C-alpha cells in the first residue's frame, strides 16, 4: 500500500485525468496503489513532455478522447487547410466554449460531452464564432418579445424549445450572417406584428436586409403603423392597400408604385372630404389620409 504522501499525489493526478476524460490512463486501487498506462510510463522513466505526448497519442484512450485531433491530422494529410490542434488547444477550446454555453443557459446536453465541442471544432467554429452564435442567435431569440419568437418559429421552423433554438444557432451549416439575417427578419416581423402590421417572410427579410438598426426598423414600422387609416378601405375604394405591402414598400423601400397608390387614395379621400367635411393630414412621412368611412 502506498504511503499517505504518495497516495495524495496519486489521487490528485487520477482526479485531474478523470476530469479531462482520461481517467483510464491512471488508476488508484482501493489500497491506494497506482496503476494504468501513465503509471507504466513513470515506471519506464518517461518524463519529457514530448516523449509523453508522443506515447500518449498512441493510446486508444487518448485517441477516443481527442478523436478530433486524429480527424484534423487526416484532413491535413489530405491537404486540407486545417490547423491540427494539440490536446491542450482542444481542452482550452472546450473550457472556453463550455463556459460560454453555460453562461448563456444552453441546455447542458450541448456541452457535456467532448464530442459536442469536437463537432464545432471540425466545423472550424472558433470560440469567437460560437460566442457570436450564442449571443446573436440563441440569446437574441430567447430574449426577444413573444411576437419575434413566434415569427422566428413561423419562418424558420425552429420550434419553441431552447434545445431546438440552440441546435439551430450552432448548426455549422448555417453561417452567423444567415442567423443574423434570420433574427432580424423575425424581429422585423415580430415587431411589425406588435404594430399590427402583417408581413410575410420575404417582406420581413427585405427590411432585415436594409442597413438599418433595429431602432430604425421600429421607427419605420411606427411610420407604417401611423398610416394605418390609409389601409382601411372605405366604401367606394376598390384598391386593397395594406400596411404589409404598400405601407412597407413605401416607408422602407421608397417604392414609387406604393407611394403613388397611397397618394392616389389620399387624393381620392381629399376630394371626398372637400365635398363633405374634413381635410388632409400631413405627416412627416408624407401625406396620410386620416379619414375613414
Amino acid at each position, binding site marked *: 500500500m502506498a504511503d499517505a504522501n504518495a497516495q495524495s*499525489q496519486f489521487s490528485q493526478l487520477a482526479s485531474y485525468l478523470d476530469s479531462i476524460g482520461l481517467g483510464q490512463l491512471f488508476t488508484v486501487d482501493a489500497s491506494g496503489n497506482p496503476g494504468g498506462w501513465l503509471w507504466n510510463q513513470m515506471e*519506464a522513466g518517461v*518524463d*519529457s513532455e514530448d516523449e509523453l505526448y508522443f506515447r500518449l497519442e498512441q493510446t486508444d484512450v487518448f485517441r477516443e478522447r481527442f478523436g478530433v485531433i486524429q480527424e484534423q491530422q487526416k484532413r491535413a494529410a489530405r491537404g486540407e487547410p486545417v490547423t491540427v490542434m494539440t490536446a491542450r488547444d482542444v481542452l*482550452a477550446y472546450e473550457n472556453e466554449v463550455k463556459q460560454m454555453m453555460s453562461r448563456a443557459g444552453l441546455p447542458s446536453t450541448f456541452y457535456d460531452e467532448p464530442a459536442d465541442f469536437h463537432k464545432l471544432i471540425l466545423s472550424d467554429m472558433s470560440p469567437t464564432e460560437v460566442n457570436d452564435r450564442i449571443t446573436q442567435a440563441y440569446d437574441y431569440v430567447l430574449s426577444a418579445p413573444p411576437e419575434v419568437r413566434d415569427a422566428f418559429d413561423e419562418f424558420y421552423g425552429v420550434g419553441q424549445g431552447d434545445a431546438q433554438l440552440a441546435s439551430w444557432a450552432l448548426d455549422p451549416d448555417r453561417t452567423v450572417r444567415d442567423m443574423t439575417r434570420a433574427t432580424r427578419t423575425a424581429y422585423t416581423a415580430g415587431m411589425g406584428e406588435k404594430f399590427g402590421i402583417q408581413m410575410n417572410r420575404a417582406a420581413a427579410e427585405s427590411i432585415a436586409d436594409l442597413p438599418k438598426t433595429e431602432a430604425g426598423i421600429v421607427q419605420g414600422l411606427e411610420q407604417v403603423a401611423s398610416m394605418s387609416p390609409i389601409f382601411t378601405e372605405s366604401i367606394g375604394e376598390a384598391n386593397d392597400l395594406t400596411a404589409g405591402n404598400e405601407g412597407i414598400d413605401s416607408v422602407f423601400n421608397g417604392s414609387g408604385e406604393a407611394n403613388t397608390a397611397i397618394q392616389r387614395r389620399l387624393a381620392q379621400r381629399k376630394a371626398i372630404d372637400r365635398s363633405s367635411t374634413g381635410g388632409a393630414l400631413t405627416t412627416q412621412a408624407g401625406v396620410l389620409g386620416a379619414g375613414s368611412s
Partner: protein
Amino acid sequence: MGNLLDAWQSGDNDPRSRTDRVARAGRTVNYDGSFNYRAPDVGPLVEPGIATLGKGTPDPASPIGVTPLRSTRPEDVDAYIRENYGQMAGFLDHPEIGKILREAAINEFDYGKLYGRIVKTDWWQSTSAAQRTWQQLANEDPAEARRLVSQTAATMNNRARSLGLNLSPSQIGGMATQSTINGWTDAQTVDSLISQVNWATLKAGDLTALRDQVKEIAGDYLVGVSPGTAQNYAMSMASGEMSPEGVRSAMVKQAKARFGYLSSELDQGMTVKQYFAPVANRIESELELGAGSVDMMDSKWLSMLETQGEDGKPRAATLHEATQLARKDSRWANTQKAQEQTTNMMSTIGKVFGRTAI
C-alpha cells in the same frame, strides 16, 4: 606371536596378503585418532612352538607349546591351554576355535598348521580383523574393553554434539560399542552418526553450518537447491564424501546448463551472483533497499537472468531492464524516487494539457 596377531587383526582374508602384512613386524591395527584405540598386543592366538607367550620373539618354526601336555583328557588340555595361553582361553568355548585349540595342543601344531586351520573356519571367514581383535580383548581384558567403549562413546558424543545431533546415552553407547567392535574409522563413525540425523530436531552445528554453506554456494551460482538437497550435500560433506569445492563444482555445472551464455565467465571463476551483482544493485537502488537485500533467486527477479535477446537467445538483462522491472515492484510506489517521478509527471501532464498545476 606378533605375526599371527597381525593376521588376526587384519581385515584381509587372503592368507598370503596377510603374511605380507605380518612381515611388517610390529604393525598393529590402528583405530582412527578420534577413537584413539590402538589394538592391544594381546599375544599369540595359539603359540605352541611359535613363541613363548610374552617371553620372546616368535619363531614361526617352533612347535606350539612350551610346557608338556599332561594328558589328552579335555580338562588337562583346557588347563594346558589356560596355563600357557591364557589370552586364548576365552576361545575355548568357541565352537570352532575351541576345538582347533584343543586339537593343536594335543597334536602340537606348529604355527603354519594352526594358522591354516583357523583361517578356514567360518568364524575367521565371517569376522573382521577388528572384530577378532575385539573379541580377543573382550575375552582377556573385559575392563579394558569397557574402557575403550566408554572412551569411544565420549568421543562420539562430542562428535554428535558438534554435528548438532542430540542422541540419547543408549544411542551413543550402542554406536560406540559397534564402533569399537568393528574398528570404525572416523568416516564410518560420522556416517553412523549422520544416519541418526533428523533435520527437524537437529540443533545448530556442523551439519546446519554445512547445509548453510551449500545454500550459500548454490546462491553464488543462483542455483535453487531444495532443503532436502542441501541437507544431502551437507551430510556428504560431513562424512567427507564431498568437499565444498565438489559442491561448488556441481553448482557451476548446473549454472552452466542454465546460463549457457555465462560459461566463459564461470570458467574464469566468476560466480553467477557476481555477474548479476550490478543488476541486483540497480534493483536495490530503485527500490531504495539496503545492499544485499535483493535475492536474484526471488521469482520476481528471475526474468533478469534469462532475458530473451533479439536473436532469440537468452541473455542477461540490461541495467535499464532491471530499472524497469524494479519499478514494477509494488514497493517502488513508496520510494522517494517514485514520488519525485510522480511530481515530475504531474508537471508534465499539466504542460501537455495546459494546466499550470495539478
